[in-house]
Structure formats: C-alpha cells, structure tokens
C-alpha cells in the first residue's frame, strides 16, 4: 500500500478519526444497547447518499437529512400507536432502501455507485470529509466529557437518573444526536449498511473482556484503529470495498475473543 499517496494518507487519517469515534461513542452504543438504532441510521441514510452526487452536495449532509427524516418517521409512527416500534423501524428502513434503489437505478441512473454507497469509499475521500469527521469526533468528545455520568446512570438506574434533574432529560437525546453524527460521517467511508462494522463491532469485542467504561473506550479506540487500518489494507490489496473488509476483520476478531473468553 503506497503510504505516500495522498488518498491513502487521507484514508488512514479517516480510519484513525473513526476509531476515535468508535472508542468514544461505540462504547456507549454497546453499553446503552443502541446498536439497532445505529444500524438503522446508517441504512436510512442510503437514499440521501444517492442524491448527493447529482445534487452536488456533501453526502454527509444529505445522509444526515435522510437519517433525520427516518428518525422523525419512526417517532411519528410510534406516536400514532397503530404499529409497534420495532415494526415501525423495520418498515422505515426498508422504505429507505427501496427509495434509494429506485433513485439510484432509475431516477439518477447511477447503478455503479450503488456498490460504493453500500460499501463505502474510504479510498476516495476529500479533505472536507476529514474535517467533517474530525468535527463529529470533537462533538462526541465534548459531550462524552460532560454527559458520561448521566449516560451511565440512565442506562443502569433510570430512577436515579431522573433525580439528577434536567441534565438527564437532555443527556439521552444528545447521545442519540451524537450517534447520528457519527453514523453520518462513517457512512461515506464504510458504506450505509456497514456503519455498525466500525461503530459497534470493536466496542462489542472489547466489552467482552473490559469491565469499566474508560478501559472500554480506550480499548475500543485501539482495536478500531487496528481493524480500520487493517481493513483498509485488505481493501486496497484485494480490491474490495473497505466497509466489507473492516466488517469481516472485525467479525472474525469478535468471534475469536468471544470463543476464547467463554472457554476460560
């Protein structure tokens, strides 16, 4: 892998930034059981990604818009009380996928890029993408610093969390916002359907062995960095999408750790 090529360097920087996000937020996604939410946001952003190119807008923005539409849709469906939440999520996701497919293949006629959209273009990033990811990481770090106690308490003892007052009321929504931002910057790199490969798998792996939150976050960042760079290398050498490479690498490590830790 030619380390002096700018596109490789950008890819490496992005991988490291994403591993930071994986460490900070991925840990919370796993601890607070928001894995499906993250998966959903990534998937739901797909139609947004499709229109980004033709509209000449940053994919992160259109992806964000699509993700917000999806989140709003699920929330609204839940309010009607005529369909259960998990069904609403499933329906909204498949609607997003179907709309994305039609936009990609029939409206904008960009079938080749469907693969890219689904599996990422870590090797085709611009400086703007890096800045956006760095911004998302900064936001995540700040929120983590100020809200981690609320996030922890809310997860394990909601009654006490309520007693903590106003902060608890905004803490969780802000966590969800941070997750949405993280998903949105990750999806350009690893694709809409494999956002969880970066944000969830490393944290889940480390969670199997790490007892405390700080260890979890640090360990996850490290593991995500290794998997991100490793996946990038695999993607380059084998000419496959970076998202799938990272997913397979991450999944294998997870299976290994799970098997070993169970047999001890």
């Amino acid at each position, binding site marked *: 892998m030619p380390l002096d090529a700018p596109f490789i360097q950008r890819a490496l920087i992005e991988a490291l930034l994403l591993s930071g996000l994986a460490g900070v937020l991925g840990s919370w996604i796993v601890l607070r059981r928001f894995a*499906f939410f993250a998966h959903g946001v990534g998937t739901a952003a797909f139609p947004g990604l499709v229109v980004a190119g033709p509209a000449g807008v940053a994919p992160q923005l259109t992806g964000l818009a699509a993700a917000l539409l999806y989140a709003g849709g699920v929330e609204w469906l839940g309010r009607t009380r005529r369909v259960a939440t*998990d069904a609403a999520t499933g329906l909204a996701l498949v609607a997003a996928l179907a709309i994305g*497919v039609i936009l990609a*293949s029939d409206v904008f006629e960009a079938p080749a890029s469907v693969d890219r959209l689904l599996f990422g273009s870590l090797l085709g990033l611009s400086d703007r993408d890096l800045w956006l990811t760095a911004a998302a990481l900064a936001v995540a770090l700040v929120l983590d610093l100020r809200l981690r106690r609320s996030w922890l308490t809310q997860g394990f003892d909601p009654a006490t969390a309520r007693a903590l007052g106003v902060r608890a009321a905004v803490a969780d929504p802000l966590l969800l916002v941070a997750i949405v931002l993280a998903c949105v910057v990750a999806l350009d790199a690893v694709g809409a359907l494999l956002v969880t490969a970066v944000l*969830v798998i490393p944290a889940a792996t480390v969670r199997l062995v790490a007892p405390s939150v700080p260890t979890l976050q640090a360990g996850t960042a490290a593991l995500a960095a290794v998997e991100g760079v490793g996946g990038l290398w695999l993607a380059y050498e084998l000419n496959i999408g970076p998202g799938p490479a990272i*997913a397979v690498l991450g*999944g294998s490590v*997870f299976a290994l750790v799970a098997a070993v830790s169970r047999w001890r």
Partner: protein
Amino acid sequence: MIDWLLDPFSGSLMQRALAEVLVVALACGPLGVWVLLYRQSYAAESISHAMLPGLVVASLAGASLLVGAIGGVLVAALAIALASRDERLGGDVGVAVAISALFGLGAVLALSPDVPARLGELLFGDLLGVTGRDVVEAAVLAAVVAVALALAHRRLALSAFDPAAAPSLGARPGRWELVLLALLALCTVAAVRGMGNLLAVALILAPAAGALNLAPRLPIALALAAALAALAGVLGLLASYHWHVAAGASVALAAIALFAVTLVLPRRRTLA
C-alpha cells in the same frame, strides 16, 4: 384503462413475475402477521440481511439460488442465535455484530473475484428475471409455509396472546416461537429471488402491519394481509412496467404505501 392494467401482463416475462410475486405474497402476508404479533421484526430483518454470503456463494458457484438461500439462512440463524445468547452484550448488540459481519462477508465474496456476482440482483431482487423453475420453487416453499401456519394457527395464537396460561391450554410458547422463526426463514428463502435479501422483509412487514391496523380479529387480519401483499405485488409490477422503475423496489414501496393508506383509515374495534 383496462389496457393499462392488462397490457403489462401479456408477455410471459411479466406473467412469471406476477406468478412469483403472488405466490410469495400469499405466504408473506399471513406470516408477517405472526411476526408482528410475536414482535420479531428485528429477527425478520436480521435473517434476510445476514443470509447474503449464502446467496453470493451459490451465485458464484453457479448453484441454485434456492440452495444458497437455505444455506445462508441456516448460517445466519445460527450466528444470530449464538450472538444473542451472550449475556455480557445484550441481544441487540450481538445480533448487530452477526448481521454486519455476515453482510460484510457476503460483500467481500461478491466483489473480489474476477467475475463478480451480480450483487445488485441478490440485494434488491430480480423479479423480472425469474424462470418458470424459480416460480415453482417459490410456490412449493410458500405452500409449505401457508399450510404450516394454518395447522399451527391455534397454538401460535395461544403462545403469543397468553404465554403464562398457554401451557395449560395446550401450547408451549418457547416451542411455537421457534416454529415461527423457522417458517420465517423459509418464507424469506421463498421471497429472496424476486425481492432480494434487503427488500424481502417489506412484503413480510408492511401488508401485515396494514392488516393489523384494520382487522378486528385474527383470521381477518391473516386474510387481509395476504390480500394486501398480493395487491402490492400487482401494483408494484404495474408501476415497474409503466414507469420503468426497479420491480422489486416498486413492490416494496407499493406494500409500504398501502400500509400508509391504512393509517388514515379508522380502526375497527368490533365486528359490524
């Protein structure tokens, strides 16, 4: 007007597509009602996402997609079952790991060889390319699912409605939930050729959600779900033909649109 409705189906290609989608709809509709009643929408989506490697392997090996689908579903179910049993993580996280890892594996397999598998068709279906044999295979699977649901109807209802009293009334809930998941897997296999593994779940969830919105009683819900699914199939194919859009996606969106329509209709609480 009649021409608009009938012309598309004058050719054998569209007739096969119609047969495929109708046959699949008749199984997915009722099955979807049970999936919703058992709150297993995540399982439905997970299984279909995670079966990708099986499909890819079959496609690359030139084997029947049916075999690949069954293999894929078994691996997916196993992985999901193993992953969700780990108490350290909680069900959702383990399942998310399993799905993305398997999905990634499918993509790696699909994209790396010199002659890549036609990933788009595996993901989004190839409704307009189904052969007569595909339709027969789907019909057999759908029939198995439909008959099984009919025979298991009362036990499924008991286990979902009142798991506490179900054993004393003749049904052990754990067993029947497993039966449902097995039928879900079979139904997904039946639907995957035409709808693709990402969109198949639309025919399972949307018509059922619409039917449960409208139907006051279970047998009506089951029949209505089948009808809505079939209607979605027809409407989707019509849209695909007249507006030149992807067939599988059109059927999926038609199903969801029909569900959306049911949201504005009043809910029936008692029989007329």
